[in-house]
């Protein structure tokens, strides 16, 4: 294979592998922009993956499967929102618990479904006309998933919402300074609930994509740590939906290469690659210092209570 083909196929596969990362990261960006860290992404993705597969397999409708995954992810996130926003529990502990819960629950329910290929996966699409463009066609427009394109559109939509609309000002203010928003009559709790639930919905879709499109089957633990990469990516992309595209494609490429390079490098080492990269990336973000860290929402991780003595 020539290097052009290598490059083309790597980017094409990076998009496919980056899709669940993109959806998950967009969700986590919104949750964290409201001031709530949700470490439960891995669990919500697992729940999404299982419920999408189960529904798609029983109804023969993969689209419905994705929809149900979104609802299930949102439901899981609702637990996190209730614990951290209403009861003001520690966000990190609650998120870790949600991951354990999601992985365990999907594993338990999924026992009978293990290892069966999905009968009707979501079909891959090839964009007419655009697919015929040399290089760019095969790179971006052949055999891709509709969810990939929806994710790209969603990233732009969420960026516009965040920076150019009334809702965006409200969401960002709640994450930066909830007391300020409260003093102006904004319902801080409602905003946080909605943002966390949206995060769960998007993580659910990310999981559903894995089981009905990327690898149309169900295996326990098939999310394989992607939820944790999402957490790192959220920091790496500085809580910016559009930058999330670049981050997701970069890590998608690393995932893909960890298979591609197997003839030459030990697979155990390759499997480490995305995670090692996440550590390196976070180290660079840290070294990048004040300038970069300014992206972090000011009240991230802090439960809000109106200042009654």
């Amino acid at each position, binding site marked *: 294979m020539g290097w052009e083909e290598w490059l083309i196929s790597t980017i094409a596969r990076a998009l496919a592998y980056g899709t669940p990362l993109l959806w998950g990261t967009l969700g986590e960006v919104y949750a964290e922009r409201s001031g709530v860290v949700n470490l439960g992404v891995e669990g919500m993705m697992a729940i999404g993956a299982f419920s999408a597969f189960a529904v798609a397999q029983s109804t023969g409708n993969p689209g419905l499967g994705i929809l149900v995954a979104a609802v299930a992810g949102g439901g899981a996130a609702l637990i996190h929102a209730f614990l951290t926003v209403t009861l003001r529990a520690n966000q990190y502990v609650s998120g870790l618990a949600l991951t354990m819960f999601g992985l365990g629950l999907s594993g338990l329910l999924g026992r009978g479904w293990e290892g069966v290929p999905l009968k009707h996966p979501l079909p891959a699409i090839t964009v007419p006309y655009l697919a015929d463009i040399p290089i760019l066609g095969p790179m971006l427009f052949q055999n891709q998933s509709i969810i990939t394109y929806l994710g790209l559109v969603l990233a732009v939509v969420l960026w516009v919402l965040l920076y*150019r*609309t*009334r*809702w965006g*000002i*409200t969401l*960002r*203010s709640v994450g*930066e*300074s909830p*007391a*300020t*928003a*409260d*003093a*102006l*009559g*904004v319902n801080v709790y409602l905003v946080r609930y909605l943002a966390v639930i949206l995060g769960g919905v998007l993580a659910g879709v990310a999981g559903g994509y894995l089981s009905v499109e990327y690898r149309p089957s169900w295996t326990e633990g098939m999310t394989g740590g992607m939820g944790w990469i999402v957490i790192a990516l959220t920091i790496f992309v500085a809580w910016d939906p559009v930058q999330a595209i670049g981050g997701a494609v970069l890590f998608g490429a690393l995932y893909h290469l960890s298979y591609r390079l197997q003839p030459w490098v030990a697979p155990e080492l390759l499997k480490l690659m995305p995670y090692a990269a996440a550590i390196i990336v976070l180290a660079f973000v840290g070294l990048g*210092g*004040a*300038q970069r860290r*300014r992206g972090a929402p*000011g009240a991230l991780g802090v439960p809000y209570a*109106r*200042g*009654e*003595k």
Partner: protein
Amino acid sequence: MMAAPGAGDLGGNQNSPPLVLLEGVTKSFPGVVANDRVTLDVRPGEVHALLGENGAGKTTLMNILYGLYRPDAGEIYVKGRKVVIRSPRDAIACGIGMVHQHFKLVYPHTVAENVALGLQGTPFFGPARVVERGLRELGERYNLPVDPKARVWQLSAGEQQRVEILKALYRGADVLILDEPTSVLTPQETGELFKVLARMKEEGHAVVFITHKLDEVMEAADRVTVMRRGKVIDTLPVAETDKASLARMMVGRDVVFRISKAECTPGKEALVLRDLRAVNDRGLPALRGISLTVCRGEIVGIAGVAGNGQRELVEVICGLRRAQGGEVVVLGRPLTNRSPRTVADAGVAHIPEERLRMGIVPGMTVEENLILKKHHRPPFSSGPLLRLAEVRRFAEQAIEEYEIITPSPKTPAKLLSGGNIQKLILARELSGEPGLVVAAHPTYGLDVGATELIRQLLLRQRDAGAGVLLVSEDLEEIVSLADRIAVMFRGEIMGIVEASAAELGEIGLMMAGTRSGMGDPR
């Protein structure tokens, strides 16, 4: 509805109905009654001062009016109609706006975004752009110029306050509550604020102005309500009263305004700073070449608006922040970038700015807090063990000498009042006959009694031969305590003046960035 008959004389019109009437408002927190059957009326076109010491219940009362707290009892009337205010949203709908002492601003956002937050009736897309236009108009009308596109963290404290006022005006506030608005302002900025208040009065707004400073009441207010320990003592026109009687009502006894102070006899150098440079938490320059000398037996005051490098200066001297350049010499020993323990052992007492966070370990007992810094040395420890009898003896002595009011030496320090926590810190820091005392905002938030005691203690240290570096935002405190005054602005010293010859106007100009005897430094 609000007929304003006749020529509106100063002091609000007696015939016009009150814009806001609070009747019998009571609010208790565990252990204290913050407001005890408070009645207050605010009339259109008046500046109404709410005067009282810290803890008198002024802010609680206004937080109730703004919907942040719910009253236990009492009624609120706005424009003659009884209302129930459950949240700030209700208060805003009633035409009430509030500027909190600690600004409620989203610092990374622009001015326009801050105003647009939570605002009804703006377009969904690009609300900030519409607000920008409205802000320019309002700014001109009330003489509150501010760039709508600027990010709030880039603005000075005075400008940030303008944003807060504009936020309330944009929402159509008839009544504007200002909580200690002058505490972050230079004297000149205070003057400008008072002009804005006068302008608002002309437009028919009412202003409630929370303060503990008598001069400001006399200068800016039409009527004044004095509160003490949760109760209203009296409401009266400012023209019919004077400072002395207001002070008596506020404190409950006669107050001496002047501190008697012995002549200063400076000795050897206690602290020498040469071209000191350091960066703040954001990595931006906070100290840009500070050179200063404090001699034994003198108090040098550092004046300036908060955030001009005072905190970083104190931290560098005490070994809590790295100096990027320059030199710190304490009592003849070079101590640049040494550990806090080395600095403390060299005879430096540090009275930190944040009492609860840096001054004490809140969960530990009074006696344990009293021996921190010395707990590892005789007589308090022998080998790895503490000598508890010795600790107790020292604690009991300190509690008596410094008049610390505590149920017992075994009480957790966090249960003490602010004034007693500060006395505890002074007892610990001053016990080893320090050669240099670094005091940051030592009386901030304390009542008159504790303030007097702490000022006396600092003067006693000076008279005993220690050098004292006093950082404070309270100009009155600096002028009355210090022998020399250095003014900081953006990490530089704008000038040093003798306190006896100090003019408030000159210090104010330096606080705003004018170098003494020179032009604008920028």
